[in-house]
C-alpha cells in the first residue's frame, strides 16, 4: 500500500500539483461563497428559485445553439465559429417575417399558425446559410490542417455579421409581441414565464427530434457512421458529402429555431447578437461533452444556471462587489475548471478515438 503511494508520488509532476491546488482552491471558494450567500438571507428562497428558472431558460437558448456546434464537431472535428452568425440570421429573418405578419389578422386569430410561419422562414434562412457556408468555405478545405478551416470560419463569421449589418442596418430590431405569451406559470413553487416555458419546450422538442433523427433514421445512421470513420463510411457506399451537408443543415435548422426563441424571450435582435451566444454555446457544448447531443443540452442548462446563480451565490458571498458584471468571468472559469476536473466534459465526449 505504502509502495503504491510512493510510486504514484514519484510520478507526480509540478503540473499535477498545481492542478490539484487549483481544484482544492475552487472547491473551497465555492463552498465559502455559497454558504455565506445562503446564510446571509440576502435573497429569499423564492428569489433563489427564480434565479434557477432564469438560468434554465437562458440555458435552453444556449442548448439549442450548442446542438449545432456539437453535431458538426462530432462529425468533422471542426469548430464552426460562424455558427453563432447562423443563429443570428435565423433570428433576423424571424424578425423580418414576423413584423409584417403581426400587422395582419392572422397574428391574433391564429397565433400558432403565425408562429409556425415565422419559424419556418427563420429555419429556411438559417439552414440555407449553413449549407452554403459548408459548400463554399469549408468543403474545399476538407483535408487541410485544422487551423485553416478554423480561420475560414472566423472570416465567415465576420463576413456574415457585417453583411447582415449592411443589408438590414445596424440598429436593434424589435420582435413584435406574441399574443398569449405574456404571463406566468406557477408550478411546484417555481415561477416560470410563459415565454421561458415556450423556449424550454422548444429546446426539449428539438432535442428529442434530433435524437430520434440520429438514432432512428437512415440519414441519422449515415451521420453516425461518418462521425465514426469517414473513409470506411465512404467505402460502404455512404455519400459523405451529402451526409456532411445534412449535418450542417440540421445544425443550422436548430440554430434558426434558437434565433426565433431568442427573439421571443429577449424581444430584440441585431447583427452582433450571434457573437457572444455563439461563444457561450460552444462553451456549453464542451461543458456537456462535445459530440454528445445530451451533452449539449446538459451543458447549456449548466452554463445558463451557472451564469444566473453563480455570481449571486458565490461571488457576492466572497465579498466581491458588482458580481453580475463578472458573470462571464464566472462562466469561463467554470469551463476551465470543468475541463481540469473532467477533460471530456460532464457527459463525456462521443468522438472516434483515432482522430485524437
Amino acid at each position, binding site marked *: 500500500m505504502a509502495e503504491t503511494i510512493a510510486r504514484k508520488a514519484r510520478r507526480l509532476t509540478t503540473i499535477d500539483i498545481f492542478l490539484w491546488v487549483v481544484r482544492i482552491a475552487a472547491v473551497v471558494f465555492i463552498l465559502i461563497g455559497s454558504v455565506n450567500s445562503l446564510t446571509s438571507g440576502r435573497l429569499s428562497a423564492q428569489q433563489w428559485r427564480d434565479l434557477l428558472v432564469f438560468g434554465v431558460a437562458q440555458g435552453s437558448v444556449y442548448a439549442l445553439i450548442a446542438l449545432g456546434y456539437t453535431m458538426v464537431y462530432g462529425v468533422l472535428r471542426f469548430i464552426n465559429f460562424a455558427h453563432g452568425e447562423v443563429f443570428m440570421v435565423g433570428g433576423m429573418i424571424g424578425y423580418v417575417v414576423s413584423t409584417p405578419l403581426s400587422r395582419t389578422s392572422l397574428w391574433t386569430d391564429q397565433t400558432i399558425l403565425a408562429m409556425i410561419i415565422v419559424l419556418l422562414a427563420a429555419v429556411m434562412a438559417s439552414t440555407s446559410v449553413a449549407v452554403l457556408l459548408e459548400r463554399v468555405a469549408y468543403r474545399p478545405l476538407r483535408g*487541410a490542417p485544422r487551423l485553416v478551416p478554423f480561420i475560414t470560419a472566423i*472570416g465567415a463569421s465576420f463576413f456574415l455579421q457585417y*453583411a447582415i449589418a449592411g443589408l438590414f442596418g445596424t440598429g436593434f430590431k424589435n420582435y413584435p409581441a406574441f399574443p398569449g405569451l405574456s404571463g406566468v406559470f406557477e408550478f411546484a413553487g417555481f415561477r416560470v414565464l410563459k415565454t421561458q416555458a415556450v423556449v424550454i419546450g422548444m429546446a426539449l422538442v428539438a432535442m428529442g427530434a434530433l435524437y430520434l433523427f440520429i438514432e432512428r433514421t437512415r440519414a441519422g445512421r449515415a451521420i453516425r457512421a461518418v462521425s465514426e470513420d469517414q473513409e470506411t463510411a465512404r467505402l460502404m457506399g455512404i455519400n459523405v458529402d451529402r451526409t456532411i451537408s445534412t449535418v450542417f443543415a440540421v445544425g443550422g435548422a436548430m440554430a434558426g429555431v434558437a434565433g426565433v426563441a431568442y427573439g421571443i424571450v429577449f424581444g430584440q435582435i441585431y447583427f452582433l447578437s450571434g457573437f457572444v451566444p455563439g461563444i457561450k454555446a460552444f462553451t456549453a457544448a464542451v461543458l456537456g461533452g462535445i459530440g454528445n447531443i445530451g451533452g449539449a443540452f446538459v451543458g447549456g442548462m449548466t452554463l445558463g444556471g451557472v451564469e444566473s446563480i453563480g455570481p449571486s451565490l458565490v461571488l457576492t458571498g466572497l465579498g466581491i462587489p458588482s458580481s453580475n458584471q463578472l458573470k462571464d*468571468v464566472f462562466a469561463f472559469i467554470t469551463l476551465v475548471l470543468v475541463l481540469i476536473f473532467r477533460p471530456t466534459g460532464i457527459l463525456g465526449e462521443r468522438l472516434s478515438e483515432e482522430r485524437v
Partner: protein
Amino acid sequence: MADVLERPATGAPPERSELPARPVSLRRAARVGAIGGVAAVFLSSIGMVENFDARELISRLSLGYFILVGLGLGMGYIGATPPPRLEGYATTRPGAPNLLAGAIVGLVGGALLALFVWFVSVVDVRDIFPNISPAMVELLTGARDLGPGLLLAFGWSLILCVVGGAMHLIPPRFRRSVFRALGWVVGVALLESLVTTTLERAQLGRLRDFLYEPVGALSYTGAAALGAIVIVVDQVLGRRRQTFRHRVAALPWPARKRLYVLGGAIGLMGLAGLPHLLGPFLTEVLNLVGIFMLMALGLNIVVGFAGLLDLGYVAFFAVGAYTTAALMSPHSPRFSPELPFWVALVPVLVMGVIAGVFIGTPVLRMRGDYLAIVTLGFGEITRLLFLSDWLRPYFGGAQGIIGVPSITIGPFELSSPLAFFYMIFGLAVLLAYASYALLNSRTGRSWIAMREDETVADAMGVNTVAAKLSAFAIGALFASFAGALFATKIHSVVPSSFTVEESILVLIIVIVGGIASVPGVAVGALALVGLPEVLREFEEYRFLVYGALLIFMMLKRPAGLIPSRRRAAELQEDEEAQDAWLKEATKADETARGEPS
C-alpha cells in the same frame, strides 16, 4: 469542368493529333455570371455602391461605379478562363469563344442586376433594407427612367464582361503587365492621401499636380501615363528579372548570404528614412503598425512556431499596458511609484511572463480546439477583470488609468511620432532577430517538433510541457512589451482597448501575413492596420473586407502573403506538386511547338 471530361482519352494518344478540347466552359461562364450578378446586387444592397459614389477615383469615375466596373471586368475575365489543359488534349488558342463566354457572363449577371433594380424601384423595401434607397436606384440606372435605365445597366454589364473576356486575347506575358498596370493605377488612385503627402514632402509637388486633380481623384492623363510606364517597365525588366533570379539562386550560399544581408541592410536604411518622407501623421500610423507588429511577432511564436491556437492573446497586451500604467502614471489609483519607463519595464515583462505561464498551465493538457476556446475565455476574463468594479481601486474600472507619461531616454522625451518611430523600428528589428534566433535554437526546434505531431514529439523525448509553457511565456513577453509601448504612446489605458476583436486582428495579421514567417508578419501588420487608416472610406466595411479576405486567403493561399518556406510546404505540398506538373507539361508542350513561354 465536367463537360471537358466528357470525352475520355482512348488508348495512347498519337504524337501530334490530340483530342480537341473545349476552349471555354459555357456552363462555367453562366455560373460565374450568376455569382457576379449576385455580388453586384449584394454590394448595392449594403449601400457600398452608394457610399463610395461620393469619392471620385479617376476623374469623375466614382469609386462606386468603379467597383461595379471592376466586378464586370473581373467576372468576365474569370468566366472566360479556359479550363486547365490536360494531357492528351490539344492546347486551345484564345479567340472568339472567350468573347462568347464573356458575353454569357454579362448576360446572366446583367439580367440579375436589371431584375433587381426593376424590383426595388417598383416595390419599396426600405423598411427591411434601409440601404436600398432611390439614390441607389438612380446610380444604377444612370438617373434615367426605368426602361432606358435598365437597358443601360444591362448593356454596360454585357460590354464590360465581354471586354473582360477579351483580356484573354492579350498574349500572356503582356497580360501580366496589363494587370500590374491596372493594379498600380487603382492603388495610386485609392492611396491618394498617402501619395500626395509623400510627393509634397519630397518636393515633387509638380508630379502630384500632374497625377491628381484638385479634388483628389487621379487624372486621366496621370492614370494613362502611370499605366504606360508600368507596362513598359514590366516588359523591359521582366526577362531581366527572371535571369537575375536564376543567377542569384545559382550562387553558392556564402555569396548569396552576403547579397541578402546587403539587400536587407539597404532596405532597413530606407525604412529608417521613411518618416521624413511621410510626415507626422503617416509616421504615427506606422507607429501603430509597429506596435501591432510586435504583438504579431509574439503571436507568431505561439501560433506559428509552436502551433498553439491562442485566441485570447490580447490578455497579455492588456497586462503589459495596465502594469505600465499602474507603475508610471501619477494618477494610478492604488499606488503610483511613477517609475521611469526603463525601470518599470522590468516588472512589466515579469508580469507578462507570469501571465503567460498562468494561462498556459491549465491548458497544457487540452486539445487544440479546446485550447482555442479556453484562451478566448481567458482573454475576455482579463478584460472583464480590468473593467470590473471589484478591481477598480487598482485599475480604475471603466475609466482606466490616464496620464501615462512618454518614454524617456536619458534627458530626451520620446513624445513626437518621429522619435517614437525610431524606437519602435529598432525594437521591431530586435524582436524579429530574437524570433529568428529562437526559431533556430533548441527551444524553437522543440516547438516545431511539437507543432508537427505532439505525440511523436513526446515519444522522441521532447519536453512538451516546457515547450508549451515557454511558447506562452515568450509570446506573453512580446505582447506585454507591446502593451507597455501602447500605454506610453496613447497615454490612456482603458479596458475598451483590449477586446476580443484585437486578439482576432492580431491573429489575422499572423495568418494573412504568413504563419511562422517573420517578414510576413510585417507585411500583414502593414496591410491590416496601416491600410485601413489610410483608406478611410472603407471604415464601415472594414470587417466585411477582413472576413472576405480571410476566406479568400484560406481558400487560395493558406500559407499567407509571404509564406515561411517550411509552412508553405506543409500546407501546399499536394497543390504545388500538381501545379508544377501542369506547368511543366504546358511549358514542354510550348517549347516543342516553338512558342515562347
